[in-house]
């Protein structure tokens, strides 16, 4: 059993928090994992990606080879497209539909979403709307984690326990919003 996931987005969108939750859930589930991430200059509003590898057997490479990714999980639609060549035939793309426009030549969003839907399987959610509904627009990353949850090889209880551990210290309201964000993401994926 293995699952390779490209996590994508823009610096500051909380990609590393998604990775943190998956890492800890994988540890709780007794899986091997390696998760390569980007630090330093790229975090300043640049494209950010993380290679997340989960497996019941030992893992060699920190990076996912092209054609091995089972999933692209992106907080930004254009960023999801950047890693298509990593996706295996039959792989799934889970992404937000909300563009992050901090570059002058951002393409037409309809064309971006049309390209996303060309993936073998895709789940596109309005993470911004759902995060607001959950109580904080900052929880878009957790909405997307919720949207991906049904396709992950991780136990949902392990994901929820880590979300709890991650946000409990930031107050009951923040924790509540993130748990709700997860639920709303999950529901949206079922309806997608």
């Amino acid at each position, binding site marked *: 059993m293995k699952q390779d996931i490209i996590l994508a987005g*823009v*610096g500051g969108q909380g990609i590393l928090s998604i*990775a943190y939750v998956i*890492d*800890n859930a994988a*540890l709780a589930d007794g899986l*091997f*994992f*390696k*998760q*390569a*991430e*980007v*630090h*330093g*200059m*790229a*975090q*300043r*509003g*640049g*494209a950010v990606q993380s290679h997340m590898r989960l497996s019941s057997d030992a*893992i*060699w*490479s*920190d*990076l*996912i*080879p*092209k*054609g*091995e990714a089972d999933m692209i999980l992106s907080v930004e639609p*254009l*960023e999801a*497209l*950047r890693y*298509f*060549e*990593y*996706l*295996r*035939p039959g*792989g799934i793309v889970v992404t937000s539909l909300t563009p992050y426009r*901090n*570059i002058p*030549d*951002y*393409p037409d969003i309809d*064309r*971006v979403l049309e*390209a*996303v839907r*060309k*993936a*073998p399987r895709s789940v596109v959610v309005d993470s911004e709307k759902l995060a607001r509904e959950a109580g904080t627009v900052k929880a878009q990353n957790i909405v997307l984690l919720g949207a991906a949850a049904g396709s992950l090889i991780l136990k949902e209880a392990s994901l929820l326990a880590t979300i709890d551990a991650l946000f409990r210290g930031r107050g009951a309201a923040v924790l509540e919003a993130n748990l709700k964000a997860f639920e709303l993401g999950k529901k949206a994926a079922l309806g997608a």
Partner: protein
Amino acid sequence: MSHQILLGDEAIALGAVHAGLSAGYSYPGTPASEIMEYLVRLAGETKAFTAVWSVNEKVAYEEALGASFAGKRALVSFKHVGLNVAADPFMNSAVTGANGGLLVVSADDPGMHSSQNEQDSRYYVQFAQIFAYEPSDHQEAYDMAREAFDVSERFGLPVLMRMVTRLAHSRSPVQTREPRGPNELKTGAAKDWTLLPVNARRRFALLLDRQPEMVRFSEESPFNVLKLNESDRSLGVIASGVGYNYFREAMKGEAALPSFLKVSTYPLPESLVRELVGHVDAVLVIEDGYPFIERQLKGLFGIAGKTVLGKLSGAFPVTGELSPDIVRRALGRDPLPAVAASGLPLSGRPPQLCVGCPHADTFKALNKALENYPGSNVFSDIGCYTLGALPPYNAVQTCVCMGASVGMARGASDVGLHPVLSVIGDSTFAHSGITPLLGAAFANTDMTVIVLDNATTAMTGGQPSYGTGERLLRIIEGVGVAKEHIRTIEPLPKNHEKNIQVIKEEIDYRGLSVIVAIRECVQETRKKRS
């Protein structure tokens, strides 16, 4: 025994702590910063050892060497180019030797994710003629860091650990072991540590004498693994560090592996290399960074009757980071089937200054002030503000190394360029900007230095800065800059016109001026609020 999720950098840090570390020193730099971030956090919790962000890498090295001379176990860490800054004490510490175990961690950045070059620290290992480790995964990073202190004390020499970005910034569980306590204080060997020629000659001879023992130690290290395939002698693989992972990844699902040697320590385990090469017709060398092993193997004349493949032969690109895909191709395996690229042209999303960044306001004022000086040059330095070289600012024309902008500005001014400016952050100024300013102040050089004081080391995540606020102004004055030409501005849109005026006035003054642009990094302000 327990499992902890650690970055490769953190695995080294924890390995050092569990080896009885007494003191760690560093200057921030990607991809090494997280080693000291972790040590500072742990030291704050346990109070069991000292962990300090130093003023620069040379100082960090000397602080660690001092702790080692006092008999304690010490660590110094930096990014690869930080070793250039620390090269003087580094090279000489191979001659003095270490007392308490001394681990030097140098993190290379193949592919230049966040660096000015992709120099390979293994050349420094060979240059200084010391022992070194190159881990391929997190567990090795932890285990090697622990062992490195014993090895350092065994040889009486500093030991280096070569990291690369990919492992430094990857997370995985690590199995930890029972910690060892710290060393007792122990001073001593004055004649070894005082490098007068008479002592240095004796010590250098001793260092050379030790080389065969280090090679033997490398040959016996369980971290180096030789596996021969008796039925297929066509190809053998020598792979080091993350290159070994990519080799194993590419061979996944194959019934048999070619003969291979996993190299994890330097000097090279010579007998193992000979055994592998003797066994096969062709050798493929897989290493992230420069073709360090490949070049040694090949020498000037190659190996009679053998083919050596690697970066020099064209089997891999000479520049950039290795990847599983590149290695797969070099091993002659077909690419995996994959989804096609979307076909939509994707513009890049480069890093940029944050919304509300004080540097942006300084650059806007600077550009305006320089409008009527077409022959000007703005030398810049290393930090977030290097992004001022990109649109929409296009405000600076150089980025070479830490502190270079001040010395370079003086050189340009000395040969007649006007106006000449230097733009440097407060932490970089403390790192290496003060000494060149001392010379420029003595000569009253016709140049204008702008110190961007955002009160932190921002680019690497907000480490402390030693030259900020009032202290910074006193340093500038103390260096000898005339008080009336030390000006301060607050880079905010509302002060735009005023700031242009200040910059213009100091450009027109044909001597040395320093303008300090004071406003806190917006990331730090945000952190304090949350």
